[in-house]
């Protein structure tokens, strides 16, 4: 379902990041770029234009919201992944973004990313 897609993963936990990477490759993703901080993600976006992204909201230092804003600006679809059950801390601008609760199943991640990508494709 994610055949040929370029995907950005922002995840600060290495074990999870490695798992997600393999998982996305299993689903047919062409390129998976994994970063563990918001600043690394923003730097990565300078020369990498993903088709879709998955962002862990709470990072070891700070949150992924600056990256989410950058993605919104560029019209790149994305989803949030978080262990927090209360999404009310998210700013209004991200109210329409899907939130994938951690821990998640492989199929749930695949479906969420695929839907985000397809929705954006349909809009444009």
């Amino acid at each position: 379902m994610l055949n040929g897609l370029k995907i950005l993963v922002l995840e600060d936990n290495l074990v999870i990041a490695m798992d997600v990477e393999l998982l996305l490759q299993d689903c047919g993703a062409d390129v998976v770029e994994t970063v563990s901080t918001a600043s690394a993600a923003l730097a990565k976006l300078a020369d990498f234009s993903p088709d879709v992204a998955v962002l862990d909201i709470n990072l070891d230092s700070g949150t992924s919201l600056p990256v989410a804003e950058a993605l919104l600006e560029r019209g790149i679809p994305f989803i949030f992944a978080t262990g927090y059950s209360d999404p009310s801390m998210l700013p209004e601008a991200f109210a329409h973004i899907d939130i994938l609760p951690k821990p998640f199943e492989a199929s749930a991640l695949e479906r969420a990313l695929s839907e985000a990508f397809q929705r954006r494709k349909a809009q444009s």
Partner: protein
Amino acid sequence: MTNDSRHHPPGKVPAQSHDPKETDVWDALPLGASLGLNLLAASPDCVKLLDLDGNIQFMNQNGLALVEVDDFRDMQGKPWVDLWPAEYEQFVQTAMDEAKASRVGRFTAFAFTGKGTPKWWDVVVSGIKYDGEAVSGLLAVSRDVTRQKQIEDSFRIGEQRFRALADNIAQFAWMADTTGYLYWYNQRWFDYTGTDLSEMAGSGWKKVHHPAHVDRVNAKFQNCIDNGLVWEDTFPLRGADGNYRWFLSRAMPIRDDNGNVALWCGTNTDITEQRKASQRLSQLARLIELSHEAILVWDPEDGVLLWNRGCVEMFGYTEGEALNSDSYKLLQTSNTLSREEMLAAVEAGGQWSGEVLRRAKDGSEVWTDCRLELIRVGDNRVVLETNRDVSERRRADTVRNVLIAELNHRVKNTLAIVQSLATQTARTSASMDEFVQSFTGRIQSLSMAHNVLTDTNWSNASVYDLVKSQVDMSAALGDRVTIGGPEAFLAPQPALQLTLILHELATNAVEHGALSGSNGRVSVTWEMVSNVSDAGLVDAAASPRLRIVWRETEVGGVVAPPRKGFGLNLIERSGHLPHIKTRFEFHDDGICCEIITNLDLPTASNQPFFNPGKSAGRASGSL
């Protein structure tokens, strides 16, 4: 008839009637008698001449008007006694008998006029002696005394009414003369005090006064009497049972038409219960005033009426600032109903309660458990409001909720890590047995790292403890495993990462490396290093870091595996994380792994483990 031009005999006063028959009577009388009768005829009373048999011979014009008879002929010659009701016939007869005997007969009786008007008459009957000899006729003069009679009656009824009123009013009543001498008390006074007028007359009232008050009361009373001033005083009076009750007493001077004091009217009203009630109220008010709970009373229209000390303490506004203000507005009440809705709820149900957010004078927020109760005072309604400060509890609730959310987050994160470990372990496991062994080992290492962190409340982890938890230090291995380094601490995330790496290294050592054979050695050493940048370059500005070296020696036949497993992947990828660097090398005599990571320095301003702003912060002083 008054402008009658007829000539009258000299000396005769013309009658007001020119009825020929009346004139005949006048003409028939001797001059002297005629003159006297003329005078009588002009009298405002009813004057009648009767013959000795008591038949009416004459009635003057005024008399006819009084008895409301238009034509004298209707009465002429009729027995006078017939005009009276039967019960008075005897009076009439007796009076006429007296007159015949040259005495004067008198009686007062009641009769109806010719037109049925009830009238009272005062009657005098005397004999007429035309020749100075024998009584030859009777003169009856009836005075209409109906009006006087009514006044007398009304006086009599008034007196009865006054007594009924005076004896039945709830108050005691009394009267005094202009000197202050009490000469009358109502029955209630006597009933209450168990006395009678003989005891009480004059200044006898002092007997039932309390000794501690009587002199003061008397002085004031006498002063008012002497100066014609309204008297008012409050004092106890002793009842017949010996107990005192309190009375509010007043006396007013009653003045005559000339403005002089004629007498004094006084009353005593029992106010014992009111005094008790008002004492209770003032005690209550004092308790309210002293309460540390914020208690206020407000009128929906007039604002705050009562503002106790608790309010001053809780909200910072003084009584002066709060009185007459709209407390809802003053305290910037929010997070609840509007003032109107609140008032409507109170009026509907009599009370309302809820937690509301207020703002004190200094701007600080105060959460209160607010209770409103509607109190009706006559036609007015006021609201009694009590407030208990629940800010502390709400703060504690907030902290607890944050902690629960954090715990929830932590658990979910850990589960996500466990799941990822399982997935990746499964990818590289050839059999279920291998999977179970590898996965259990990894979970075990994670669990031990959690233990180390939990010991310090998740503030940091001792490097020594972490290393010891992952490396087999059992006696069977003797000195083949050595660990050592200075006391050092890591923040939770680097600690977890290091633990996972150490576990992979330890597992590898047992399965393929130094501890798989009988000769190999493992040393785990660490040190603080300064001046090392993220890139591994010398950097004077960099803060001290921890450098751990896992070195295996005396291992034969060391070769790199054909495919990177999870462990090696993890170690290499860890090097791309912020604040951690790894280097992994295959040496001829065994592997070497170098890990450089940030130290948790007690003096540094460390990033809290949890998202700042959502966390209660890390525990301090754990070192």
